[in-house]
C-alpha cells in the first residue's frame, strides 16, 4: 500500500463541513469515539477542532465557531450556517446509488424493500446529481443459487457450524469439511463464505459456486478466537512466504493471466521480440499451474525453474497418450 497522500486544503474543508453537523447533533460525544466514527485519529480530530475554533462569519468572539473538547467530550456551537451537511456531491451520489442498485440484485435478499425505499429517497434528494449514477453499473457477484446464499447467511446469523462438500478445481478434488462461518463476502464477481475450517485448522475462503452441498449442523459454530478475517483489499488470492516462484513467458494472447493472478513482477516484452510479458508468479502447489499451462496450449510457458518445465512437458505428454491415434499412428 502506498502511504496516504497529504490531505489537500479542499479535501480537509469538505471533511470539516461534514464533521460539523455530525458533531452538532452529538453534543458531548466522547473524543475518541467521535474520532473512530469519523475515521480519523484523535490527534487529527483535535487539530480539526482547533481550526474550527479560529473560524467564523466574522472575527468578533461571538461570531466565531465554538469548539470545546476539554475533559474528552466534544461540544460544537455557533455554527448554524453549516449545521446541515453540504448536498451530496457527484461521486458521493454515485457510490451510494450504484451500491444500492448492486445490493438490489443480490439473490434472495430479505432487505430488498428497504433498498428500494432508500433508493427512492436518495434519488429524490440528489436531484440532478443522480443522473450520472445511471451510467455506472456494478454487479457484486453472479450466478450463485439464492438457496445456498440464504443457508450460508442463516448459519452465520444463528452461529451454527456448516458441513461442506467443496470442490477444489486447482487440484480437482472434492473435499468434505466442517466450517464455522465468519462472513459471506461478494468480491470480484463471486460469493465466498469465509470461515474457520476444522479440516485445515485455519481460516479459509470458500467460493459458493464450488460448494456442492452445504448443510447447517445443529452444533455451535462460533469460530475459535484465533480465526481472523483475511484482508481482501488485494483480492482473494494469498501467496505464502514459502511459495515456489515460477517465471512465465506470456505471448500476446495469454497476457490475461497477469490480470487474473497476482504476479510478483511483470515485464513487458517489446513488439520486436514478439510482444507479451514475462511474469513471476508465486504458488504453493503447482497443480493449478500445470492446469493453466495446458489451457494456454503454448501461448504461455515456464522458463524457470527447469524441473517445473520438465513436469509440465511430461504432464502434456501423458495427456496426449490418451489420444494414441492422433499422436503416433495418425501422423506419419
Amino acid at each position, binding site marked *: 500500500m502506498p502511504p496516504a497522500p497529504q490531505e489537500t486544503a479542499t479535501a480537509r474543508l469538505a471533511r470539516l463541513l461534514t464533521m460539523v453537523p455530525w458533531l452538532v447533533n452529538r453534543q458531548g460525544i466522547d473524543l475518541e469515539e467521535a474520532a473512530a466514527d469519523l475515521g480519523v485519529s484523535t490527534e487529527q480530530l483535535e487539530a480539526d477542532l482547533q481550526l474550527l475554533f479560529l*473560524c467564523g462569519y466574522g472575527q468578533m468572539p461571538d461570531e466565531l465557531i465554538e469548539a470545546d473538547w476539554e475533559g474528552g467530550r466534544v461540544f460544537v456551537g455557533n455554527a448554524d450556517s453549516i449545521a446541515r451537511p453540504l448536498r*451530496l456531491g457527484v461521486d458521493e451520489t454515485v457510490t451510494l446509488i450504484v451500491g444500492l442498485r448492486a445490493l438490489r440484485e443480490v439473490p434472495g435478499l430479505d432487505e430488498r424493500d428497504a433498498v428500494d425505499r432508500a433508493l427512492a429517497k436518495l434519488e429524490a434528494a440528489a436531484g440532478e446529481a443522480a443522473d450520472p449514477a445511471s451510467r455506472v453499473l456494478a454487479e457484486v457477484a453472479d450466478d450463485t443459487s439464492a438457496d445456498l446464499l440464504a443457508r450460508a447467511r442463516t448459519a452465520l446469523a444463528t452461529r451454527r457450524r456448516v458441513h461442506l462438500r467443496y470442490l477444489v478445481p486447482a487440484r480437482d478434488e472434492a473435499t468434505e469439511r466442517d466450517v464455522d462461518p465468519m462472513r459471506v463476502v461478494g468480491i470480484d464477481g463471486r460469493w465466498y463464505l469465509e470461515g474457520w475450517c476444522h479440516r485445515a485448522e485455519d481460516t479459509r475462503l470458500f467460493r459458493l459456486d464450488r460448494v456442492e452441498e452445504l448443510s447447517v449442523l445443529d452444533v455451535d459454530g462460533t469460530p475459535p478466537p484465533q480465526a481472523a478475517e483475511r484482508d481482501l483489499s488485494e483480492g482473494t488470492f494469498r501467496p505464502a512466504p514459502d511459495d515456489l516462484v515460477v517465471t512465465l513467458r506470456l505471448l500476446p494472447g495469454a497476457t490475461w493471466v497477469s*490480470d487474473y493472478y497476482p504476479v510478483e513482477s511483470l515485464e513487458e516484452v517489446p*513488439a520486436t521480440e514478439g510482444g507479451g510479458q514475462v511474469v513471476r508468479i508465486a504458488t504453493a502447489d503447482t497443480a493449478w499451474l500445470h492446469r493453466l499451462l495446458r489451457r*494456454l*496450449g503454448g501461448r504461455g510457458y515456464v522458463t524457470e525453474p527447469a524441473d517445473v518445465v520438465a513436469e509440465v512437458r511430461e*504432464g502434456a505428454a501423458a495427456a496426449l497418450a490418451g*489420444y494414441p491415434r492422433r499422436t503416433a499412428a495418425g501422423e506419419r
Partner: protein
Amino acid sequence: MSSQSGGGAPSAAQVKTERLLNLVLVLLYARRPLAKAQIRRLVPQYGQSASTEAFERMFERDKDELRELGIPLVTEDIDAFHDDEPGYRIHQRDYALPDIAFEPDELAVLGLASRTWAQASLAGPAAQALRKLRAAGVERDTESLIGIEPRLRTAEPAFDAVKDAVVRRVPLTFTYRRPEAAEGAERRVQPWSLVSWHGRWYLNAWDLDREAPRVFRLSRISGTVRRAGRPGSFEVPADHEPRVMVDSMAGSATQSSPAMLRVRVGAGHALRLRARTVGEVDDEWSLVDLDYGDVWSFAEEVAGYGADVVVEQPPELVDAVVERLRGTLAAHGGGGS
C-alpha cells in the same frame, strides 16, 4: 498527517483551509450578495494579502475550488446602483442537503451500499456520503445483521480517470491493448457508461475512429487516460443499456453442443457436476455426457485436466484439445514436430 494543534507556525495548507472555511461561513451568513472589498475585510486571511491584485487572484482560485467541491457559490447583482460590480453569496437552501428521514433498515442498507466501496478508490466519497446522511440520525449498527459483505474493487489504474469522464461526459483518448495484439493502439472515444461485470470493469463507449460502439476492458488500458474535450460535450443515446451492451459484446453466449468424455474415477469433479449423465465404465473410468458452448474455451478447460479426461466425441473437440496439448508440449521443449 495531522497539522500541529499548538505552537509553531501553521502550515500553508492549514492557512488555506481556514481561509476557505471563513469564506464559506461569511457567504452563507450574508443576507445580501457581498462585494469583493467586503469579503476582503471579513475574511482575515485575505486582509493579509500583499496587494489587491494578489487578493483577487486568490479569491478567483478559491471560488473555483469551492464550486468544484459542489458548494453553490453564486454571482448576483448587489443592487440597482452598483450594477457594474458583482456580489457573491451562498444560498442556504442550495447549500444544505435536503432533510431526509431514513428508517433504521434503510440506514442499514445504505451503510452496506457505502461499505461496498470500502476497498475501492471511491472509499472516501462513499464514507463521506454516509456520514452526511447519518449526520442528524442516531444510528444503530444493524448492517451486520444482514449477514453479507458485498465488495467492489477498482484495481484498474485507469478507473478514476474513466469514471470521471463517464460521470461528466468528457471525451477520452487512451492506449488500448487488445488480447491478441503485441502493441497497444490509440483510441478516441465518447465514454457512455462503466460496468462491473463478472468482477471486472468495462467501459462502453462510442469509438470516434471506428464510428461504432465498442466495449473496453479497463485492465487493458495502458498509460495515462487523457481528456479530449469539454464536460457534457456529447450525449449518451437515450436507448443505451449498459449491461446489455457489455453482455452482447464482451461475453458471447453461443449455442451448446453435446460431448462425450472419458473421466478418471475420482477426478473431473466440476465436469461431473455439469453432466447430463455419468456412466461407470470400469474401476478406472467414467463416461460423462454434457453440453458445452464455445469449442475453444471448452477445449481449454478439458486440456487443463490433462490425463484425467479424454474426449471421445465430437472429433472437433478432440482436435482442439490435442492442439492445446501439443502446443504445451512443444513450448516446454517436448514433442518432435
